[in-house]
């Protein structure tokens, strides 16, 4: 029994890690007022870039870095369209998803199905990995797990709420006109936020193909990008909530695998549906239950609204 739980937790940290990386990136963009719907495409690009990089001899970490750069490049194109040219955010996001996914599939065709040449290998920490449950689940993973689950969320929390850059970023997402009048460079902040978010989405994709599933195939992102967006919304736009949400989703995914492995009476297709249905439930239940009190599920006030300085 403990073995099953341990295995579930290992999977949860990996599966959830993908979601968490993407969510933290999307959080940065949404806090700056940009609703980036292209996460799915950016994850695909990151995933395939990671695979190609390691196939050409790079170690996994370098592969992830390349993935981040590639995704950031696409993020620049997206940011230029949305922030500088003020094109419709939903359309551009969908375009990014479709073209990113298509491009990644086209480029990655020859790598499809082959295991990744290098992965984020497990590292057993000397004493701690002998512990009964946590030992295998937490302390026998690749150190990047700690970066994703502990360091990055804490750093992001500090950045958003305890630095002057965080104040500027959140201000841009709440009321760009007010931020502009206060002397914040709205366009630069939004552009940087979008590119940073894109880089993290690319990292998420690389983590998917180099640590969790350790191979590439078309459609491997499987809607995770959309779950990421939902995660940011019902996580209340706070980094620490993302951690809990990602862990929850990781566990649900792991539960699905356990069910399939142990031949539960539920057909495997339905087990695979769980993450998606759970996401929908998580989006519907909070507003449903919180109808009485106006809780703080409030998004940045200017989310999704393009900023025009000279509009009369």
């Amino acid at each position: 029994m403990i073995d099953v739980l341990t295995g579930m937790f290992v999977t949860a940290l990996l599966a959830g890690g993908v979601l968490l990386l993407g969510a933290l990136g999307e959080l940065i963009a949404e806090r700056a007022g940009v609703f980036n719907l292209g996460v799915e495409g950016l994850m695909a690009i990151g995933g395939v870039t990671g695979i190609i990089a390691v196939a050409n001899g790079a170690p996994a970490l370098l592969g992830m870095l390349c993935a981040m750069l590639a995704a950031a490049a696409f993020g620049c194109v997206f940011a230029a369209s949305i922030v500088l040219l003020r094109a419709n955010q939903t359309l551009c996001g969908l375009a990014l998803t479709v073209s990113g996914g298509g491009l990644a599939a086209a480029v990655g065709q020859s790598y499809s199905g082959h295991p990744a040449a290098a992965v984020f290998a497990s590292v057993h920490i000397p004493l701690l990995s002998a512990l009964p449950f946590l030992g295998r689940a937490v302390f026998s993973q690749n150190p990047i797990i700690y970066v994703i689950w502990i360091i990055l969320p804490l750093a992001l929390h500090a950045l958003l709420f305890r630095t002057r850059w965080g104040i500027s970023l959140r201000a841009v997402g709440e009321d760009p006109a007010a931020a502009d009048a206060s002397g914040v460079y709205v366009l630069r902040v939004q552009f940087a936020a979008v590119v940073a978010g894109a880089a993290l989405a690319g990292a998420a994709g690389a983590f998917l193909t180099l640590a969790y599933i350790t191979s590439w195939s078309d459609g491997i992102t499987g809607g995770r990008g959309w779950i990421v967006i939902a995660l940011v919304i019902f996580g209340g736009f706070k980094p620490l909530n993302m951690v809990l949400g990602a862990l929850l989703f990781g566990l649900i995914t792991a539960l699905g695998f356990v069910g399939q492995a142990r031949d539960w009476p539920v057909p495997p297709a339905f087990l695979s549906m769980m993450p998606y249905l759970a996401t929908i439930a998580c989006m519907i239940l909070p507003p449903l239950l919180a109808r009485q009190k106006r809780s703080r599920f409030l998004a940045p006030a200017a989310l999704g609204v393009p900023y025009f300085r000279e509009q009369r």
Partner: protein
Amino acid sequence: MTDADPPCAVRLASVTKRFAGVIANDAVDLEVRAGEIHALLGENGAGKSTLMNVLTGIYQPDGGQIFIDGREVRFASAAQAIAAGIGMVHQHFKLIRAFTVAENIHLGWAETPVRVSRPQMEARTRALAEKFGLDVRPGAVVGDLSAGEQQRVEILRTLSRGARVLILDEPTAVLTPDESAVLIRNLRAYAAAGAAIIFISHKLDEVLAVADRITVLRAGRRVASLLAADCDEPELANLMVGHDVAPRGRQSQGWTPGRVVLELCGVSARNDRGLPALRNVDLAVHAGEILAIAGVAGNGQRELTEVLTGMRPASQGQVRLDGRVMRADPAAFLAGGVGHIPQDRLKNGLAPSMSIADNAVMREYRRPPLARGPVFSRVAAAALAGRIIADAHVAVPNMHAPVRNLSGGNQQRLVARREMRVASRVLIAAYPTRGLDIGAIGTMLRYVIEMRNSGIGVLLVSEDLEEVLQIADRVAVFFAGRVMGIFPTEDADGEKLGLLMGGQLA
């Protein structure tokens, strides 16, 4: 000004700014000295706010130069203007409502440390507030503050950035008379300490009381710069409008009460955030009268008009139209003969991207001949639209162009005539003259009087006391969601109304 004087704190030379098809500022000159309060006077649309937006770096001028202390400067952004010592308190506060006072003060401020926590920010804010003698609560969320408090936060923010030129855009529009007095006292103190203050207003009496010098703008051009001591109201009004303005006399005759058409009985209501907006309000609109609601904006007037037109439910009490108790259903109120000129025409009254014709028929689209069963007749709709457009004297070459292409005055007249057609019992007019030039204001007031004279009850919400005293039969003063007093206009005067508006029972 002779050459021996020190250079002006601010000098704008021949500044020009254009927008789509309109010249907002046409070669405007402005000189403001340190230590003076300089008023910028003009009607709505004269270009005052635009000019100040150019000075503060939000807009880029299309022509002309800006000199600060004699040096020419170019502001590519608001940040550069702030760094040069220019601070602006906007008419619509540029504060982040979701942030606390302390966070707003520290936003975009060069002196904010890179790593700073909430308690740190609040302590620094408290120190600043003491230094400048302004009463603010650092930990409060701005969205919860009153207009007067928010304005104090804006002023604190500008002063803490080291502003030596302080620009205030219609600052007394949201203040009670008491708060205005406090503000003016503070401004005189800052001027005495060497700041240059630019005070934008369209209120003649205020300008004469506060300013040292006055510059008048009209239609984007500067028409005069005078010493306040050298001029009087009629002269200023003349300069503002461009022709002699006859003093507006009272236009309402003796009032004989008709029957009650629309009334509120002990009505309480909540606003969008769940806070009480109306408290136990008793109000009755009679046929053939103009009942004016006076009060500083934000004291429940919006919720009042929404309850009276079915757009907001009452949490307590009853709304009665012709004696019948009504549910909160705009369609039912419309069918009952209630017309509504909304406060925010672009948000509520019009669909900006739809055609002028589509907007004109928005209140009558369900009635024959436009609608026969489920079918909507385009031909009949166009005919009706044509009639409304003609009545409103709006000259459009093409009624299928989007309504947002029209000017504000045209849009307002269109909405007004549309509502006048359906208002067979009551017309609710919320701030109908806001943002319009004098010609359009006159037209709207004429419409209101026309309705009254044909036996319709009119509820007029206005923040312009002069307007209220001029045409209303009765005046009700609103403060914090309560009716402070209702009386016939003959018995009202500016001072009494001012006290009630400020929350003090006379």
